[in-house]
């Protein structure tokens, strides 16, 4: 009885979650779809062709998004791993203050700080460059990689490292051969997260890229402000692909229940 009600609830919630994707999928493949028809009268691949047409700039924008996202993921993992080691692996004074400081950009919008730093970026010649965009994307991503790695290091005792050190391994060798293989899944999750956050950025890219650095959300935003639902929907679906892939990967490799151990309270929160 309770089981049945649970299934009904699941179907209802799943339907509500799926609802916004319904028009996106229908419009992407719609040829002619007049009001008030519930389904398109004709189907077409115009939306898909637009995505793949080199003239539309979608492929280039996707490449730019991928390039920025991958570099941001690498850099923010490289910054987040040592921070997580310090925050999760050791006890020290003023740790609470440092955690507050590092987590602040999750709740205080980076838009405010980016507008503030814009003039300095202009002076340094960082505006309108991929590198400048990469730099400001680190602001929303580093807090997440740091906090995810902190939760990984909290659960480690460091006994294996101690053994390795006793056997004469250098700190660096110990890190590469003992610590790194152990924290690899956490590093992957942190990197994936950083990538998704960077991938979803619109306003930071617009402010610093000044419209010269065109990423996928730029194209989606201008399409959404126009009135061609076919193009808008096709772009929106393309923009959603990495998130869906990431979800499939996460669900394949995470054991059931692992995703909701309360770490999600801050960790698995806002992505875009």
């Amino acid at each position, binding site marked *: 009885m309770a089981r049945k009600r649970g299934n009904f609830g699941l179907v209802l919630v799943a339907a509500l979650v799926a609802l*916004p994707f319904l028009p996106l999928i229908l419009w992407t493949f719609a040829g002619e779809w007049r009001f008030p028809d519930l389904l398109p009268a004709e189907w077409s691949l115009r939306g898909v062709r637009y995505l793949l047409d080199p003239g539309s700039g979608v492929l280039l924008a996707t490449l730019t998004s991928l390039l920025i996202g991958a570099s941001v993921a690498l850099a923010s993992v490289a910054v987040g791993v040592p921070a997580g080691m310090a925050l999760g692996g050791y006890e020290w004074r003023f740790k609470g203050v440092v955690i507050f400081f590092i987590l602040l950009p999750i709740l205080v919008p980076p838009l405010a700080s980016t507008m503030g730093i814009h003039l300095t970026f202009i002076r340094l010649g960082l505006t309108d460059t991929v590198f400048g965009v990469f730099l400001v994307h680190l602001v929303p991503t580093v807090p997440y990689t740091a906090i995810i790695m902190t939760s990984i290091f909290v659960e480690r005792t460091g006994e294996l490292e101690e053994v390795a050190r006793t056997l004469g391994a250098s700190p660096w060798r110990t890190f590469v051969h003992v610590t790194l293989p152990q924290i690899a899944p956490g590093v992957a999750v942190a990197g994936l997260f950083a990538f998704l956050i960077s991938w979803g950025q619109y*306003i930071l890219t617009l402010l610093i890229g000044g419209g010269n650095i065109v990423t996928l*959300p730029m194209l989606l935003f201008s399409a959404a402000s126009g009135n061609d639902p076919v193009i808008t929907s096709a772009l929106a679906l393309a923009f959603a692909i990495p998130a869906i892939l990431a979800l499939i990967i996460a669900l394949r490799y995470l054991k059931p229940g692992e995703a*909701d151990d309360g770490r999600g309270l801050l960790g698995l929160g*806002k992505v875009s």
Partner: protein
Amino acid sequence: MGGRVKIALLLAPALVVIGVLFAGGLLAALVQSLGYLPAIGMAEVNLDAYREVLTGEDFLDSLFLTVYVAGASTSAATVLAVLAAMALRRSSGRLAALVFQLPITIPHLVAAVGIALVISQTGLGARLAVTLGLIGEPKDFPVLLYDRYSIGIIVTYVWKETPFIALVVLASLRGVAADLEDVARTLGAGSWQRFWYVVFPVISPGIVAASLIVFSFTFGAFEVPYLLGKTYPTILPVMAYNEYRDIDLSARPVAMAINIVIAAVTAAFAAAYLRLARDLGRG
């Protein structure tokens, strides 16, 4: 001593990134909000921008709208999240995780576009209403986009943030709450009694913490209101951006003053959240 140096070195990269790019940016915003912009010949420090912002009707309208949108989205998302978590707590963990994770992972822009295509006057909702004979033409369908009540923005936020709160609630429901509830049932408590006196007190700290995050996030977020909101009043981050883009460079201090207000409010929420999270961790 060596330990302290090691910790400092480990933290250095993160502190440099956040310190320079984030805190440095906020500091620059603060300086500019005080009217100090030597690059465009404004070298006098004053509080004019704050005076203009805090006494201006535009700002108050925006502030009111921002609090309304964040408050309405957070309340609706919280209530729905508790209901959804209660309904789903006995179903398969993997499926529930998939259903809840999807909106969390999907970018806000995708959600906004999809929801606009459902609730616009020519959207799926209106098409369904015509098919069912409820309305005759698009203009009979209620205006839910770019509207007075910011329905489109709120619906998008509710769709995005409900699962986030629900996952937090689900985690605590599957923990202690489930055992306590069984005890209460054995003792003869009815279902409402069990929820109100047993389950709710256990899950409420998590609910408060998650709602704080959602309120703070929706208070400072830009994309969804920029896309689905009307042109006046706008929520504060959009107002700051519009002032910032103003051709008249003397509007810059005003934009920065708004940014400082947003930063102060959201930082207060961050502090409240961390205090709560720390107490939760202890308890």
